[in-house]
């Protein structure tokens, strides 16, 4: 009877035996009736016929009896099966209680492995797999255009969007939102006593909330007419908190202007995530250069029945048509609609994938460790198992019983692991809100619990199958004779293989961790181009405050006030500093006909370079010569000079920053700027970013008032003064200058750290996994050797009685260990060689096959393995020769 038919019958109860029994019962009845009738005088044939007639419908009876018997049989079998499972479970429980440390170790290992895997899945499920929390979120797309190289660019211009709105046929609705979350000043109107503070805000076109179908907690979304009115919308958190759930419409002051809040967005459904306030705007700029001002993101909802491909094709056709009639447009070579979720998730995909991979590796190592533990335990039970086999326990029954033990441990560990995962994901959701997209949505639910169950059962089976199969395979005799049986860890046991696998996997994680660490260190080592120590930066915005005419003198006065404070060495201003957001614009270089020439445009004060420690390489910086009305000058950086004037000095060359300075962004209306100085490159986006071409103009010469609206103030302290001590004098100066101005102050160091925080976090997590896996592998190795040594203590004793040196015995044991480790490491190296390719996206300045990192990982592994092996090895050398001779 094959296994599958037995299983089948377990639940359906088909059995030829049953048919036979039923048949026999009927036959016996007929025979008895026939005999009785014959005794009364009928002939045998007549008796038989009468008996059958009296019986009734034999066939129906047969069927009825058969099915009744089968049902009974099935029920009985299931009952027996449950009883045997219960017996296994209670045996497992008893055994667990009799070896408390092993049980504890197993449960803790399961808890960690299952807990981490579940936590990882929770994060990945919420961030990568699930749809965004909006209704019908799969119909939402982000819009993009393409440049001449075909590269898709998510930022779009209002001009192309207006073209789309007029002509598209596949979208149900679309809207724009500003590509940068801005920091707006919020103040309570009429309440000068309360300090204003900054909140995250986004400009949106009126139909924005209809596209997303975001439900309102109170009030309404924007409508077309709102663009003319002074209205705003806020998030639920802000409304309940700062506004105290005030009845709408409620008046607030944003960026100096009074506005009415007309709607409140439900918590968790703000888009972009984390937005606190929304202001309406109506896109104005069309045609010509406006096609090149990429300041917004576009979101849209697909029409019923329209696919993304259709939408992409439609939008691309419209964009290209506009591009043909506007040759100055650079980004109209194509268009596309990509799923909004991909847009939100972005980079996170790569490092979440890494996380899940690391967690899985850890789980496998843990299972291998537990399997090894199981094999060791099973081999100590050699005699007992042999006895059971000889008493007729089927192999399957033994396997099942051993599996039950592991499964029960897994279940307990899994339950605790789920609790651990719950705590871990709670922590992640809180702390990672800045770095991880959709962090607010992270939470456990039934799907995650289902996953946890599957993983628990899988881990239990995986850990248990090897010891179960191995332990139940043997012939009973050697064990029964009362000898020690085969030593686990000796030849022919899977223990060594399991440890080898663990070593290999641990090496893979170590290598990955090593690569990331090396990359991190190298990145930190990069020259930023400016000083970091001892400098603070203050962000403030004059939008809505004071006369626009007053702005230049405002900053000049503020500079004097701050410079007067003790401890301040110098003060500078810039429209954008490194680690802040920055803007690039199109430029025209005299003598060059490159339509795509661009550079970052920065408006700075005279002492900016000095304050930031940016080196002046040639020419001069800005000074009193440069006033409004005098010759327009600019200072460029090395990247810009190399790109546009390679091989020669840029001093004296001329350039126009037309998208920033021209009226309507046209080159004709922009003035020529003469280059008077060359400064060193800086890395604007922190350690990880590249150096871009940058051009600087003086505060006093910036043509448009809005260039001066939001300046970042940088303050350098006297040498030796820690940067955070500058915060209060700077804040005091600001308050003197303008008490109602909201200011955010942070050290440059802190701002840089924040940019690195995601990388840092990934590194810490991965390093944690690598360390944990190394620990597990070391424990596995230690356990294996320890067991082998205790089995062969007698042999060791004899050896030393025969005069073997301690060192020789030590070497004998270590040789075993090294054998396992070397083979495992070799396998691990092969896997790592292949696997680290996957890290490419995250590695900066380091090749995926960087030999230094590989060597380091290998060294760490060998060191830890040797340490793990030394303890049992030393125990072997202490084997007492007298004892062992006596014992034989």
């Amino acid at each position, binding site marked *: 009877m094959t296994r599958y038919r037995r299983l089948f019958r377990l639940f359906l109860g088909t059995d030829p035996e049953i048919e036979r029994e039923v048949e026999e019962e009927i036959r*016996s009845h007929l025979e*008895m009736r026939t005999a009785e009738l014959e005794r009364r005088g009928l002939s045998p044939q007549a008796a038989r016929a009468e008996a059958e007639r009296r019986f009734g419908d034999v066939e129906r009876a047969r069927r009825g009896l058969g099915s009744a018997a089968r049902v009974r049989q099935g029920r009985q079998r299931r009952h027996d099966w449950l009883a045997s499972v219960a017996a296994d479970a209670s045996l497992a429980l008893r055994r667990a209680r009799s070896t408390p440390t092993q049980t504890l170790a197993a449960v803790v290992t399961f808890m960690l492995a299952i807990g981490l895997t579940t936590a990882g899945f929770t994060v990945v499920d919420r961030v990568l797999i699930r749809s965004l929390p909006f209704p019908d979120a799969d119909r939402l797309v982000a819009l993009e255009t393409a440049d001449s190289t075909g590269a898709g660019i998510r930022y779009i211009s209002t001009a192309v969007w207006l073209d789309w709105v007029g002509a598209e046929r596949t979208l149900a609705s679309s809207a724009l939102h500003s590509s940068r979350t801005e920091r707006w000043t919020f103040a309570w109107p009429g309440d000068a006593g309360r300090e204003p503070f900054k909140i995250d805000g986004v400009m949106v076109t009126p139909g924005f909330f209809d596209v997303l179908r975001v439900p309102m907690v109170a009030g309404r979304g924007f409508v077309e007419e709102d663009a003319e009115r002074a209205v705003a919308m806020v998030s639920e958190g802000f409304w309940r908190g700062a506004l105290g759930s005030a009845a709408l419409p409620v008046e607030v002051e944003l960026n100096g202007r009074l506005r009415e809040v007309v709607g409140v967005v439900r918590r968790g459904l703000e888009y972009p995530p984390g937005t606190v306030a929304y202001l309406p705007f109506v896109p104005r700029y069309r045609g010509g250069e406006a096609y090149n001002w990429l300041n917004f993101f576009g979101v849209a909802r697909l029409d019923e029945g329209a696919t993304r491909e259709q939408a992409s094709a439609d939008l691309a056709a419209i964009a290209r048509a506009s591009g043909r009639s506007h040759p100055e447009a650079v980004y109209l070579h194509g268009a596309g609609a990509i799923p909004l979720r991909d847009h939100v998730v972005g980079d996170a995909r790569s490092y979440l994938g890494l996380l899940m991979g690391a967690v899985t590796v850890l789980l496998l190592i843990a299972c291998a460790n537990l399997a090894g533990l199981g094999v060791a335990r099973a081999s100590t039970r050699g005699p007992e198992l042999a006895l059971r086999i000889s008493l007729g326990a089927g192999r399957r029954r033994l396997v099942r019983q051993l599996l039950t033990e592991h499964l029960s441990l897994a279940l307990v560990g899994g339950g605790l692991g789920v609790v651990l995962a719950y705590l871990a994901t709670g922590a992640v959701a809180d702390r990672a809100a800045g770095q991880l997209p959709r962090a607010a949505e992270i939470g456990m639910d039934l799907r995650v619990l289902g996953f946890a169950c599957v993983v628990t059962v899988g881990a239990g089976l995986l850990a248990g199958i090897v010891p179960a199969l191995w332990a139940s395979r043997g012939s009973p005799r050697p064990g029964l004779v009362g000898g020690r049986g085969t030593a686990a860890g000796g030849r022919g046991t899977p223990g060594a293989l399991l440890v080898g696998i663990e070593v290999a996997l641990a090496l893979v994680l170590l290598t990955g961790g090593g690569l990331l660490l090396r990359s991190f260190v190298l990145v930190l080592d990069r020259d930023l181009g400016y000083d970091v120590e001892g400098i603070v930066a203050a962000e403030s915005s004059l939008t809505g405050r004071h006369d626009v005419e007053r702005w230049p003198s405002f900053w000049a006065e503020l500079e004097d006030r701050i410079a007067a404070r003790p401890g301040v060495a110098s003060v500078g201003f810039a429209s954008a500093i490194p680690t802040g957001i920055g803007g690039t614009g199109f430029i025209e270089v005299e003598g060059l006909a490159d339509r795509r020439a661009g550079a970052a445009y920065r408006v700075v004060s005279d002492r900016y370079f000095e304050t930031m420690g940016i080196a002046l390489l040639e020419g001069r910086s800005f000074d009193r010569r440069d006033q409004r009305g005098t010759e327009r000058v600019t200072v460029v950086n090395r990247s810009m000079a190399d790109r546009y004037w390679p091989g020669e000095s840029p001093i004296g060359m001329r350039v126009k920053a037309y998208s920033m300075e021209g009226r309507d962004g046209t080159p004709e209306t922009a003035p020529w700027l003469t280059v008077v100085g060359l400064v060193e490159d800086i890395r604007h986006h922190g350690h990880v970013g590249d150096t871009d071409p940058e051009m600087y103009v003086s505060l006093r010469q910036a043509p448009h008032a809005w260039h001066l609206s939001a300046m970042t103030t940088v303050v350098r302290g006297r040498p030796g003064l820690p940067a955070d001590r500058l915060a209060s004098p700077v804040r005091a100066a600001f308050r003197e200058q303008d008490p109602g101005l909201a200011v955010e102050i942070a050290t440059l160091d802190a701002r840089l750290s924040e940019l690195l925080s995601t990388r840092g976090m990934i590194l810490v997590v991965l390093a944690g996994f690598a360390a944990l896996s190394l620990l597990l592998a070391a424990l596995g190795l230690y356990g294996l050797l320890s067991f082998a040594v205790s089995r062969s203590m007698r042999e060791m004793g004899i050896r030393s009685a025969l005069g073997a040196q301690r060192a020789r015995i030590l070497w004998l044991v270590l040789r075993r260990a090294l054998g396992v480790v070397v083979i495992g490491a070799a396998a691990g190296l092969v896997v790592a060689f292949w696997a680290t390719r996957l890290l490419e996206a995250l590695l900066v300045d380091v090749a995926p096959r960087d030999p230094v990192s590989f060597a380091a990982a290998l060294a760490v592994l060998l060191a830890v393995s040797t340490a793990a092996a030394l303890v049992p090895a030393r125990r072997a050398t202490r084997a007492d020769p007298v004892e062992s001779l006596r014992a034989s």
Partner: protein
Amino acid sequence: MGNDRDTLPLLKGTLDLLVLKTLSWGPMHGYGIASWLEGRTDGELGVEDSALYQALHRLEGRGLLEAEWGVSENNRRARYYRLTTRGEAHLRAETETWLRYTRSVTGILAVTSPTA
């Protein structure tokens, strides 16, 4: 054996009760139950053998009877049925219900005048 046409058809559920009662004297096989019932009622009640066996297996499935194979009086293999404790309890309860029911019905049917 009386003429088939004169046998009374059994009311639903009655067969089970009769079987339980028959087995209250001790274990019997199917044929034994059938011939005892026929003898006892003088053939008045028409019990088809197949119906009897289905009743037996049904009662076994409900746990009111137990069955095992044994050897019959004439050295044949036969399946013997026996009351379980649950079966005994069930028999007592159902018997009481039946007697109450029939007493009431008989009481009304025996009345000769509406006002008596």
